[in-house]
């Protein structure tokens, strides 16, 4: 497949750029809407847990420009309660009304919707809806929500324990009993959100018959379409979902949200276009949250620092509802399964629990539990090193699976087909002059009023998850495959359709590179179409670092099929043997006799019966083919991040002074785009490590629902990044690609935390939580000082 790679691996500049730079890219709110479009405004609950005693919509409905105000009971006639379809032992299903009917379960849950003639009036209308709440006590904290007597979020979920999963190898107790050393630690991660700069929105336009055109700022057009049909009763074949430009997804837009169902249903009901745009406050309140996690981890290790056994008790806060389509167990099972990382840990036991609370529902945000599980295991690696007075990098090297032993299946059954755990760590250490830094580093770490440390994260990144991988996580209705259609048009140009949707990753460019190589076409002649369910084949769509693996794989296969057809037709036209026909650069020619060949256009004209040439015997008309790709279980990438940090001894602020990455995502399609993904992920990771946190008070009141109070990192908070690549092509999948979308974020959180821990280790400061705001660091430093006296 793709024997001569002219374009895969090249730094092709992006074709997306020009129209985005000119301001011509159309995001949902940029779409020109019909003049009779109705605008929605949602009334949001100000309480974390309450019974809706009464809703009076009369005043709101009477406002000029308001068409209707609907309650949860009204909406329930159009939309069934949504249910995350997880089948997993220990998981308790529960449903969610898309607009609350009886009980509200988190601040920000919708209780009514105003349908208005303008977005401005919608904001006026929602203020006039009078809701009578009976406030109920709320269970907010991960640590206490499952205690006896706590208010239950759902009647069917006892003690708010939505899910509990267990696993153990047979020898883990013996490993702990027999090991000379055991260390235990508790890691606490604060809640964060993806916070894309474009908030969510959608636009539903009824068309002929019962058809409806649905634009949404989504990462999952096909999954969305199926869900819309499933929960509203509409015919799936009459729904077209189109993804316009999307201003950042990061997993938050891979969920399917209540507002999408409501917008869709009301467009059908009113037979008018209906639009909804979220504002930033709503985005922070209601887009999925993530990483409200607690890990209690124990490692047993020998005198050389080699881990003999690992135990983990993992708690994840799932919020008030299990979200579509991943449910709230994705983080739970993700952390539990990914924590062993690149290490040879063969005795392992975990208990992993997802807890319901009266807070915003959790979901898939870039990294999905890997930032937190690596925070834990990488934090333990450093603790082992400190306990034994070994170097932390050395401890990791002693624990890693050597490349020569790959393929290797880890203790939970995840296969690492290829990789470069040891090589990437060694290379990263060279890049940052690790040994030089250690040599110069004073015992007290203090130089020029700053504590300086170096933090490592060596990790694996799960990517390209196929159906078996989703089943292993309990997601029984997640397809897993993706699809591609490659077509040569009558004029010889190439159109390729793929079941993905972009949100900034450059698919139009990278998929074109893949198709051009698969087919033997010129890059300029290839056009990619995605994000349109009327045009593109069905697939699992775009999240969890999958598009290169599944989309690339499907396009390689489909492209190859078309290439073979080109060869057959050309052979016939050239009176040559098929084996002698080479397809390259948009031409098919006899090997060694380049001038004896045909352009794609000439071949296509035969395929489309537009000349006097007949098709070869048995050949069908047209010049296109479809293929699918479902990768095996998962495709594991790996990387190492090393951060050199400086903690100001006086004001406790953290600066990242140097940051190096060695990344292995298998065969790289476009190195610059890969680097861009890594850089963006690192930025989010540094934000998460140092300043981002969604804060609820004990009553479940969200404290920081604006960007004044939820701080995102800016250009002055981030360093330059030094990134190098190793390519260990996957041997398990078509194309050899591995995903890279999440790696930047996964590595940054532990690297920064470990850097701060290293910087402050002489003070006895224990870094086991995030974010490390300056006030947190001060507190930890003072506690350490008190412990020492």
């Amino acid at each position, binding site marked *: 497949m793709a024997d001569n790679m002219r374009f895969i691996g090249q730094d092709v500049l992006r074709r997306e750029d020009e129209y985005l730079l000119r301001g011509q890219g159309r995001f949902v709110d940029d779409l020109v809407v019909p003049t009779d479009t109705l605008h929605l405004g949602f009334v949001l609950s100000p309480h974390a847990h309450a019974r809706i005693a009464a809703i009076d919509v009369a005043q709101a409905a009477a406002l000029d420009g308001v068409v209707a105000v609907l309650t949860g009971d009204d909406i329930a006639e159009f939309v069934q309660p949504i249910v995350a379809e997880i089948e997993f032992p220990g998981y308790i299903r529960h449903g969610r009304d898309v607009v609350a009917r009886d009980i509200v379960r988190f601040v920000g849950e919708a209780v009514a919707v105003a349908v208005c003639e303008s977005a*401005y009036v919608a904001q006026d209308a929602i203020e006039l809806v009078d809701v009578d709440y009976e406030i109920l006590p709320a269970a907010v904290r991960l640590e206490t929500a499952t205690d006896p007597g706590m208010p239950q979020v759902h009647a069917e979920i006892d003690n708010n324990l939505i899910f509990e999963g267990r696993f153990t190898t047979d020898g883990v107790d013996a490993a702990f009993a027999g090991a000379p050393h055991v260390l235990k630690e508790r890691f606490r991660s604060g809640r964060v959100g993806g916070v894309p700069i474009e908030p969510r929105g959608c636009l539903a336009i009824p068309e002929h018959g019962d058809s409806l055109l649905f634009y949404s700022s989504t990462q999952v057009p096909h999954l969305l379409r199926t869900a819309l049909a499933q929960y509203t009763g509409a015919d799936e074949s009459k729904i077209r979902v189109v993804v316009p430009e999307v201003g950042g997804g990061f997993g938050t837009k891979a969920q399917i949200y209540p507002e999408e169902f409501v917008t869709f249903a009301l467009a059908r009901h009113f037979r008018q276009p209906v639009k909804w745009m979220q504002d930033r406050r709503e985005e922070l309140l209601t887009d999925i949250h993530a990483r409200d996690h607690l890990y209690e981890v124990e490692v047993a290790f020998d005198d050389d620092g080699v881990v003999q056994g690992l135990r983990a008790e993992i708690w994840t806060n799932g919020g008030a509802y299990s979200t579509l389509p991943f449910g709230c167990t994705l983080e739970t099972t993700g952390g539990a399964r990914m924590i062993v990382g690149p290490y040879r840990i063969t005795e392992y036991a975990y208990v992993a629990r997802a807890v319901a609370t009266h807070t915003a529902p959790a979901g898939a945000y870039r990294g999905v539990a890997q930032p937190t599980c690596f925070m834990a295991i990488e934090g333990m690696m450093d603790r082992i090193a400190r306990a034994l007075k070994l170097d932390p990098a050395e401890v990791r090297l002693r624990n890693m699976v050597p490349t020569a032993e790959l393929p290797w299946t880890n203790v939970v059954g995840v296969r690492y087909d290829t990789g470069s755990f040891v090589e990437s760590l060694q290379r990263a250490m060279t890049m940052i002059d690790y040994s030089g830094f250690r040599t110069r580093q004073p015992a007290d770490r203090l130089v020029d009023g700053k504590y300086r440390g170096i933090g490592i994260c060596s990790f694996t990144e799960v990517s390209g998850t196929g159906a078996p991988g989703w089943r292993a996580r309990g997601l029984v209705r997640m397809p897993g495959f993706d699809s591609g259609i490659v077509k040569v048009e009558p004029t010889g140009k190439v159109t390729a359709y793929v079941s993905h949707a972009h949100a900034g990753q450059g698919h139009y460019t990278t998929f074109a590179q893949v198709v051009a190589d698969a087919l033997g076409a010129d890059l300029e002649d290839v056009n990619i179409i995605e994000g349109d369910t009327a045009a593109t084949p069905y697939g699992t769509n775009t999240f969890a670092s999958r598009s290169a693996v599944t989309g690339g794989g499907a396009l390689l296969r489909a492209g190859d099929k078309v290439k073979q057809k080109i060869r057959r037709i050309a052979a016939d036209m050239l009176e040559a043997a098929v084996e002698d026909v080479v397809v390259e650069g948009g031409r098919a020619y006899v090997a060694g006799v380049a001038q004896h060949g045909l352009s794609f256009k000439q071949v296509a004209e035969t395929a489309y019966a537009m000349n006097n040439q007949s098709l070869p015997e048995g050949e069908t008309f047209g010049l296109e083919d479809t293929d699918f790709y479902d990768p095996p279980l998962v495709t594991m990438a790996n990387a190492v991040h090393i951060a050199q940090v400086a903690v100001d001894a006086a004001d406790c602020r953290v600066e990242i002074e140097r940051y190096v990455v060695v990344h292995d995502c298998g065969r790289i399609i476009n190195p610059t785009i890969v680097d861009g993904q890594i850089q963006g992920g690192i930025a989010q990771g540094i934000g998460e490590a140092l300043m981002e946190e969604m804060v609820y008070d004990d009553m479940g009141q969200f404290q920081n629902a604006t960007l004044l109070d939820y701080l995102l990192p800016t250009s002055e908070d981030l360093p330059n990044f030094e990134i190098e690549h190793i390519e260990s092509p996957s041997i398990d999948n078509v194309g050899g690609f591995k995903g890279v979308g999440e790696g930047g974020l996964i590595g940054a959180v532990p690297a920064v935390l470990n850097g701060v821990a290293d910087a402050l280790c002489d003070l006895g400061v224990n870094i086991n939580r995030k974010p490390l705001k300056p006030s947190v660091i001060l507190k930890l430093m003072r506690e350490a000082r008190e412990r020492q006296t």
Partner: protein
Amino acid sequence: MTGKTEVSVTVNGRKRHAMVEPRMLLVDFLRHELGMTGTHIGCEHGVCGACTVLLDGRTARSCLHFAVAVDGAEIETVEGMAGRDQLHPIQEAFHQHHALQCGYCTAGFLMTTVELLKRDPDPDEADIRRALTNNVCRCTGYANIIKAVAAAAAAIRAQS
């Protein structure tokens, strides 16, 4: 009481007017009244910078202005930067350096860069990071944006 009034502004050199409510934000005026959707909304509280335009030659948060309050002003938006066939040097530099991914925040960065380079034609990395610190990007991590701005500065200096 809050009937519509006429607003006249010059946008990218062209006189434009419309009848709007006083509360219509300048960003909505540009986007929905004038159909110029290149400028985007990210927060409506002046923090993210996605809505940045030039107002009488200086950057302004168009989400924090009412159209009626800037009646008579000269506004420049991203749509005015490129020529028909050629991108502005700053835009070209963003393209060459992969300084955009989703593109949603990009117009704001372009406008801020225009102002920066007018004021300081040869900024160093720290100057650039300082100038861009009030534009938030969630996709790129800024490193390529910084490089693009430096390259744009060099290209513009070379032109003059």
